């Protein structure tokens, strides 16, 4: 079993330690080429017919990129056009060492079968291993190793190729010295740019080339604009001795010349350092980790309230710039001044590809253009492209390559086009990318873990499961729901008590721990619902078929079964894995109809009535305990069935059956939370909702006071009670508005691991413990909870990560992040569809209520559409009316009229599409009439349009 191996010692000395490692060289590492007759390999990766249409290499060839080519040009390598590439182990290791994201992308490419990328373990091959020579740097040695391996390949292929059609190996490198040496040793070698440009059939690849540093045609003038960044060693020394601070750079959304650096201190004492002016920002980009140096106290400034957008043509002369900067330095009151500093160095860049649009240069033939990212906090990026005319008006993605000190803008390269701006698909893609929602199709590796179809329940499956197929179980969901993850039943027992069962799709049966499918689901965290689109967390086969508890098919479920008396008191709780056969999938409305229709008396209807009765009792009990009923307006779009354009907007209606299902889900979640916490006190995944700090309620209290209503916020119960009692005569909408305000005061509920926290309380539900168990198809947290529960009842085995509270806690962080981002994405999607709606509707006049009062604006809520908008009183280019803001009220008096919270106003709604990237709903005041501020009500024209649409 021991092969005879040449035995070489590799000595690596660094610092003090001398480490000796063995290094075995082998004869059984194959070349991976289909054309080779000499290697005894079982499967091959590289094709014989490796043709890429290149004007430089007309023969079939394999590519061997060096490390820098992989690191910088991964965008190009990922393109489906580039195939048959040999990635040497030397390169792979260097990439791993230098950039984790690129390494991950490279690995993904290596796994893709169609790409024909082969990893050659050259460092362990007897003929390609080389020792480091005295005086040779590690980099030089690696370059030489790459050349030796490429040389070996070309000789090997020449020797063993079966049909001689001149298969060759082409080395790609950007390093001049390396290229020269390779040419000397008789290798075919090209610069990456040269080679990509020679691919005649695919000219679009050229734009994806990243600009390398040694490029001669450097963009930008030779004038140095920015101070040099300090080397990392000096930064570290500076941070250690306290002269520099380390923090995350956060650019301001409204002012491109301003940013803050959030410095995390020990414990709670973290500070924010203000940065102002291009010089001080010193090429930092939003989200970078930077080192800042504080300026002397005399130079401290206050954050400006000016809105400044970096607009217009590229600014290369900085006259204009200076003026803008001057505008910032309005001397502020001493008190308003904040610690101010400047960036001295970048510790870690956090660049990702950015979405945005191209500003086409005015010069027609120019290939350099500015790119404006959708995120205003990211600076504009200069890219080089020959297809500017086709890209204009498109949403595109651009990656930053670098920001030299003599360039006003960072340099980047085009990654891909998402489609033309304003189109639904494009905008959807943009908002998914900007909210970091993973939405690519599932990879082959992930799909390989799906069960084979046709799938059926086998007797082996039933050994560990309880057979509940005879029960009359049904599901109640919103219309059009295909991922049904819960079903219910209720029946009377012989002893007069009721048996209630909540059956949840058994997703953890199909998704086994730590396989690719599980990892993908864990990283996605949640299914994201956009208007008219769903981004699944698990592949569709599971989400809409095998896991979905559809009617009249047999499905696996995880059941939570209670025995209750008629007072809805739980007498017994039992959890079991089961098989069920749902008898009906109903919508909320259908279920409601069955309950109300006295003529129907079948099993399902009876069971629904029983559930409904219990739910009412449960809800009352819960509210008595102090659970909050809050309100937020949710809207539903009526979509045109063909164009998928929104044709009507409606606020969601809530029925009794909604709350029926909700009650039982809450009960199941609480029961499960208790069970898993009892069983695993250290590693149960729970959900908590912290009580908001008292100051959060200020706005609510003030608002209520203005209508002479008193709100108590001492406890959840007091709040719930006082909200119930808050009524104003002749203002029926007041209570809803108040609840909307109360919702805004709340904290975000979060997942956490029980071993890492001591406060478990769920404020909103007034429950001492809570978790998520009932939606495993669309939330990953539920899958973990399922696994924990399965272990607790002995239905499944555990795995180490499940019991590791640190890993659990890291997972919770990801889930919380994904959850937050998915909510933002959802909101952005609603906002976009609202815009589409108003675009088709033209101008509308609507009544609304003032929700907040700001210094220069009021925020108006229009109940009919659930739409919120801002009415500004200081629009650019208009004379600003006399504004007086009173913080106590809060009230804002405009000329002679005073605005308070809850005032009824009439506004006209229009779509402002002057900025294609940031379309906005604009509202302007019609009533009350204030001269110089309000506008006359426009009419007639929208009516006609409306009629047409209604037909």
């Amino acid at each position, binding site marked *: *079993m*021991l*092969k005879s*191996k040449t*035995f070489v010692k590799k000595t690596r000395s660094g610092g003090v*330690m*001398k*480490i*000796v*490692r*063995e*290094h*075995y*060289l*082998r004869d059984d590492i194959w070349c991976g080429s289909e054309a080779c007759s000499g290697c005894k390999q079982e499967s091959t990766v590289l094709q014989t017919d490796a043709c890429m249409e290149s004007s430089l290499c007309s023969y079939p060839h394999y590519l061997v990129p060096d490390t820098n080519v992989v690191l910088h040009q991964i965008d190009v390598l990922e393109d489906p056009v580039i195939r048959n590439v040999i990635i040497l*182990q030397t390169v792979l290791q260097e990439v*791993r060492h230098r950039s984790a994201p690129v390494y991950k992308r490279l*690995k993904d490419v*290596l796994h893709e079968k169609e790409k024909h990328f082969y*990893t050659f*373990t050259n*460092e*362990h091959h007897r003929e390609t291993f080389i020792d480091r020579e005295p005086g040779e740097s590690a980099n030089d040695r690696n370059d030489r190793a790459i050349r030796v391996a490429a040389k070996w390949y070309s000789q090997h292929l020449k020797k063993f190729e079966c049909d001689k059609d001149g298969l060759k190996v082409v080395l790609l490198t950007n390093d001049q010295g390396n290229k020269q040496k390779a040419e000397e040793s008789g290798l075919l070698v090209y610069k990456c740019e040269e080679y990509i440009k020679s691919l005649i059939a695919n000219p679009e690849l050229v734009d994806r080339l990243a600009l390398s540093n040694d490029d001669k045609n450097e963009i930008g003038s030779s004038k140095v604009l920015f101070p040099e960044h300090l080397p990392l060693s000096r930064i570290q020394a500076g941070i250690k001795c306290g002269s520099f601070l380390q923090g995350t750079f956060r650019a301001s959304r409204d002012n491109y010349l301003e940013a803050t650096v959030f410095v995390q201190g020990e414990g709670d004492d973290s500070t924010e350092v203000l940065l102002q002016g291009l010089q001080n920002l010193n090429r930092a980009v939003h989200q970078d980790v930077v080192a800042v140096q504080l300026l002397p106290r005399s130079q401290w400034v206050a954050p400006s309230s000016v809105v400044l957008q970096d607009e217009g043509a590229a600014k290369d002369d900085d006259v204009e710039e200076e003026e803008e900067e001057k505008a910032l330095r309005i001397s502020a009151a001493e008190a308003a001044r904040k610690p101010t500093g400047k960036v001295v160095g970048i510790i870690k860049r956090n660049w990702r590809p950015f979405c945005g649009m191209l500003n086409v240069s005015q010069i027609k033939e120019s290939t350099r253009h500015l790119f404006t990212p959708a995120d205003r906090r990211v600076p504009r990026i200069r890219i080089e492209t020959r297809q500017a005319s086709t890209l204009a008006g498109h949403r595109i993605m651009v990656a930053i390559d670098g920001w030299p000190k003599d360039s006003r803008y960072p340099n980047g390269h085009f990654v891909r086009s998402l489609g033309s701006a304003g189109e639904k698909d494009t905008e959807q893609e943009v908002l998914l990318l900007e909210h970091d929602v993973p939405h690519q199709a599932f990879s082959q590796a992930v799909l390989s873990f799906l069960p084979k179809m046709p799938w059926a329940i086998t007797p082996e499956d039933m050994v560990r499961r309880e057979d509940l197929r005879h029960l009359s179980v049904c599901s109640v969901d919103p219309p059009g729901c295909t991922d049904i993850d819960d079903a219910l039943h209720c029946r009377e027992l012989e002893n007069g008590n009721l048996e209630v069962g909540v059956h949840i799709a058994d997703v953890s049966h199909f998704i086994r721990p730590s396989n690719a499918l599980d990892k993908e689901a864990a990283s996605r965290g949640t299914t994201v619902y956009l208007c008219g689109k769903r981004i699944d967390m698990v592949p569709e086969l599971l989400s809409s078929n095998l896991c979905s508890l559809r009617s009249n098919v047999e499905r696996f479920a995880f059941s939570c079964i209670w025995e209750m008396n008629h007072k809805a008191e739980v007498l017994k709780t039992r959890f079991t894995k089961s098989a069920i056969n749902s008898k009906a999938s109903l919508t909320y409305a259908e279920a409601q109809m069955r309950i109300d229709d006295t003529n129907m008396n079948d099993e399902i209807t009876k069971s629904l009535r029983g559930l409904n009765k219990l739910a009412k009792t449960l809800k009352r009990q819960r509210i008595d305990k102090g659970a909050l009923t809050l309100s937020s307006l949710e809207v539903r779009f009526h979509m045109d069935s063909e164009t998928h354009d929104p044709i009507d907007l409606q606020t969601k209606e809530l029925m009794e059956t909604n709350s029926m299902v909700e009650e039982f889900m809450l009960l199941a979640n609480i029961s499960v939370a208790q069970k898993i916490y009892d069983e*695993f006190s250290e*590693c149960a995944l729970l959900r908590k909702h912290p009580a908001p700090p008292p100051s959060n309620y200020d706005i609510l209290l003030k608002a209520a006071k203005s209508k002479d209503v008193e709100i108590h916020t001492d406890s959840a119960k007091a709040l719930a009670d006082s909200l119930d009692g808050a009524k104003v005569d002749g203002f029926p909408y007041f209570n809803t508005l108040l609840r909307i305000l109360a919702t805004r005061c709340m904290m975000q509920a979060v997942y956490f691991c029980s071993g890492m926290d001591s406060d478990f309380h769920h404020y909103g539900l007034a429950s001492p413990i809570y978790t998520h168990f009932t939606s495993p198809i669309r939330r990953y947290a539920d899958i973990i909870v399922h696994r924990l529960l399965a*272990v607790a009842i002995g239905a499944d*085995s*555990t*795995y*180490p990560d*499940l*019991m590791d509270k640190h890993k659990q806690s890291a997972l919770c962080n990801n889930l919380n992040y994904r959850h937050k981002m998915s909510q933002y994405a959802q909101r952005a999607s609603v906002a976009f569809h609202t815009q589409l709606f108003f675009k088709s509707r033209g101008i509308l006049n609507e009544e609304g209520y003032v929700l907040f009062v700001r210094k220069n604006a009021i925020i108006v809520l229009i109940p009919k559409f659930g739409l919120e908008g801002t009415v500004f009183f200081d629009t650019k280019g208009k004379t600003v009316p006399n504004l007086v803001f009173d913080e106590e009220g809060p009230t804002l008096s405009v000329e002679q009229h005073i605005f308070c919270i809850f005032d009824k106003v009439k506004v006209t709604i229009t779509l402002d599409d002057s900025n294609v990237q940031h379309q906005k709903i604009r509202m302007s005041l019609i009533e009350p009439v204030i001269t110089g501020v309000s506008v006359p009500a426009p009419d007639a024209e929208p009516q006609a349009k409306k009629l047409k649409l209604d037909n």
Partner: protein
Amino acid sequence: MNSVAALCLNIPDIKRCIQTEEDRTVTVRTLLLLSLWSCRSSSPGGAFGYVHSAADTWGVALAVRLPFIRSLRKNMAGLELLSDQGYRLDGRKAAELRKVQARMGVFAQADGSAYLEQGNTKALAVVYGPHEIRGSRSRALHDRAVINCQYSMATFSTAERKRRPHGDRKSTEMSLHLKQTFEAAVMTQLYPRSQIDIYVKILQSDGGNYSVCVNAATLAVIDAGIPMRDYVCACTVGFVDETPLADLCYAEESGGVSSLALALLPRGGQIALLQMDARLHQDHLEALIEAAMTACKGVSKVLDEVVRQHLQEVSSLTGE
């Protein structure tokens, strides 16, 4: 003695003895060891009884061991222990051992001696005896020989030069393990009231110190002409990416791998010692033990060859 099989454990017995923790991972804290002595002192019964008695008898040993239980270390170093192509850090495949080289009879004045290299781990083993009990006679056993083991590491054996006084806890523990291993293998009942000394020194350390010591000492015992039931071969295995890795080197051992050391009497397939400090899911244990046994059998083949070659050399020297 009835049979060797009665003394040594097989896998199902071991699994019965391992306690599973709340989270269904196992930690083999207890050493499963066998010796004539512990067998005798235990009540007649299954292997289960033996293990318990071994633990009782070696209560001291356990107390010494516990502080050394390695905490769960994450793979912080960030070394890729097993590449996608199936190669390990040093170019071996998962089941391949390091190169084993050995020489017997390296010292003339001792009764038996051997030098063994397993990759970069190098050990020297010397055996004296069987001879009369030295020191206090009360240690003598009336029906078999006492085995006395001493393990030490050379000051220059690791990357960092370090003074290693005799009798530190680590080497006391290791000495104890060696003693237990050899009590199971050497036919001590042939030499009542006598003593066998085994001294092992690690000259260079690169992972798997225990197994290299056992392998070297086996050769030394054979060189001394002391009868054994079989070779005792030892090997470590680690568990990475659902794959057992045989014969870990230092970089792998320190990379946070759950590793297991196993000493085997290869012909009968009996386990003389099993030790695991890290946590491992019980489902994987069997696969890991299987891999370790295969690796030990591989070692035994090499040792057998060394012994045969040594015999040939000796016999040609003596002109037979």
